[in-house]
């Protein structure tokens, strides 16, 4: 991985306002973004994703902590002195300039000669497949086309890091899927570090090398999509990424107890009350199993069925099965098995 394009964020915090109205938009965020990777900030609206991106771009200075690019401390550098470019959520294309002039803007500000600039603009427009629109005013472009121009404009000066703030949220579903593939391609071809912001967990899982899941101004977990999905660090992550069942259990002697049913655990866990997390699709139906539940409802999903059931202690549980099984009736008792490798023990509520 490329050392010079690695981003370190160390204990960064950001407060807005003061006194009674203070907002802690970010609290002690520490993370490393490897050079040349596709890194995603994922979290619900208001969790501080944009604020973190603005700190990286230089539009805001952190209230505390530092930001390093490679081994250079950029915390106090203004945006125009950082080799980091942004694709804004609203695109922010310059309405008085043509497509080509927009793409060449950064190069012009850097004082790059006309001929070299034009060549680079052509190359960038080809990269995002907008060659035929070079002389158009940007107001005449569709949303998807503006998006491509914004990408080309941000990539043209060859930044070390590209920041993208929910770039796809304004597009319709079909275009969004296309642009997801397009963005992955651009990241691979340019080798530039992408820091991508989204609140859409599916988008984050399909596109990222690594994901930082954020909530309430804090990083909850950092890892590959697989790690985060399979081993969520806490209840927030387990609930935000995909669906999870949360069952209150008591841990003792390397096993979790639900009522008088024992589930032996693969990994050691602290004894005492805890929460057991398991994905609906990981729960197996097993007639005659020791853990039983009463079906309360079934929902047909096309490629699967979701069965809602109630355990003996009254806890609701959801499980997902292939659509080919015989649907149990409401009120019927079913036996459940929670495979040890799919079980995750989290702190109690």
């Amino acid at each position: 991985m490329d050392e010079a394009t690695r981003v370190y964020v160390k204990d960064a915090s950001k407060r807005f306002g003061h006194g009674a109205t203070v907002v802690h938009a970010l609290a002690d965020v520490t993370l490393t973004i490897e050079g040349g990777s596709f890194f995603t900030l994922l979290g619900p609206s208001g969790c501080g994703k944009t604020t973190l991106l603005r700190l990286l771009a230089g539009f805001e200075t952190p209230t505390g902590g530092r930001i390093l690019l490679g081994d250079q401390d950029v915390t106090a550098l203004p945006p125009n002195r950082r080799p980091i470019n942004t694709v804004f959520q609203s695109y922010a294309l310059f309405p008085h300039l043509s497509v080509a002039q927009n793409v060449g803007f950064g190069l012009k500000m850097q004082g790059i000669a006309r001929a070299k600039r034009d060549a680079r603009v052509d190359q960038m427009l080809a990269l995002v497949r907008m060659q035929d629109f070079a002389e158009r005013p940007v107001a005449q472009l569709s949303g998807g086309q503006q998006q491509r121009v914004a990408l080309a404009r941000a990539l043209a000066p060859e930044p070390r890091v590209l920041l993208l703030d929910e770039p796809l949220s304004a597009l319709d579903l079909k275009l969004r899927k296309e642009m997801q593939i397009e963005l992955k391609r651009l990241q691979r071809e340019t080798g530039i570090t992408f820091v991508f912001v989204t609140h859409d967990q599916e988008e984050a899982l399909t596109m990222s090398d690594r994901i930082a899941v954020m909530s309430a101004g804090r990083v909850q977990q950092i890892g590959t999509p697989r790690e985060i999905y399979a081993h969520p660090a806490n209840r927030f992550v387990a609930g935000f990424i995909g669906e999870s069942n949360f069952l209150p259990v008591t841990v003792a002697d390397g096993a979790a107890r639900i009522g008088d049913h024992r589930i032996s655990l693969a990994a050691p866990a602290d004894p005492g009350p805890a929460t057991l997390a398991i994905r609906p699709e990981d729960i197996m139906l097993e007639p005659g199993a020791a853990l039983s539940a009463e079906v309360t409802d079934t929902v047909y999903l096309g490629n699967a069925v979701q069965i809602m059931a109630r355990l003996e202690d009254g806890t609701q549980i959801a499980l997902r099965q292939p659509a080919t099984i015989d649907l149990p009736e409401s009120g019927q008792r079913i036996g459940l098995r929670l495979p040890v490798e799919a079980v995750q023990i989290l702190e109690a509520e």
Partner: protein
Amino acid sequence: MAERRFDPTRLPGFATVAVAVFVLLYLPIATLVAYSFNGGDSVAVWGGFSLDWYGRAWANETVKAAALRSVVIAACASALATTLATLAAVGVVRNRRMKGRAVVYMAINQPLMVPEIVTAVALLIFFASVRQFTGYQGLGYLIAAHAAFCVPFAYLPISARLEGMDATLEAAAADLYATPRQAFRHVTLPLLTPGIIAGAMLAFVISLDDVVITEFVKSAGQDTLPTYMLAQMRRGVSPEVNAISTMLLMVTVVLLTAFFIINKQTNRGKQ
């Protein structure tokens, strides 16, 4: 039945009042314009159509000098006022948390709040001492005075345009390596241009027809078109004044029409 909002056009007698207002506003002007084409030398008795008074006004060296002086003062003052208004607007609109915003706002709009006659007397006294101190006698005093009272008029369309402008565009410029100066030059200024042109035209028109402050501040031989006309009227009304007024009216109408067209296009461009 759908609820109707209060509609003043439905009040009894609305049409009568409306017509009366229009007549009061425009009939005198229409009369003035009509009598500027009067063949006789009265402003009350029609003596047939002629362009005689335009010819006389045009041939009158004093009128020509006053007209030129008016244009020079209006051009310099509006350029100065527009520059100041632009800087003030960028400073105020782009710094929401600026300390003393209210004070700056008051300073900019001072000419609209203080009675013009008071400003005129104050300027007269102030410039008298400056004159004594520096010995300077030129048009500078009039230009400075006009620039001062034109600022709020230039400020209005410029700040409105700036308020409507997306601040993200300036952030984008900074993100793309523009220094604050370059961002202003390559992004803010071009997008602000329609507002600046509108502001300059408004300031020009306001300067062109000022009487009170000019009358107080001017030295001997510094008559503008309006103060020349005032002096003429004291001696008795002649259709020559009508002709000059009509020409002044034409210039103003043309400039204001252009102002509205620019404003309208700008607003359309925003949507």
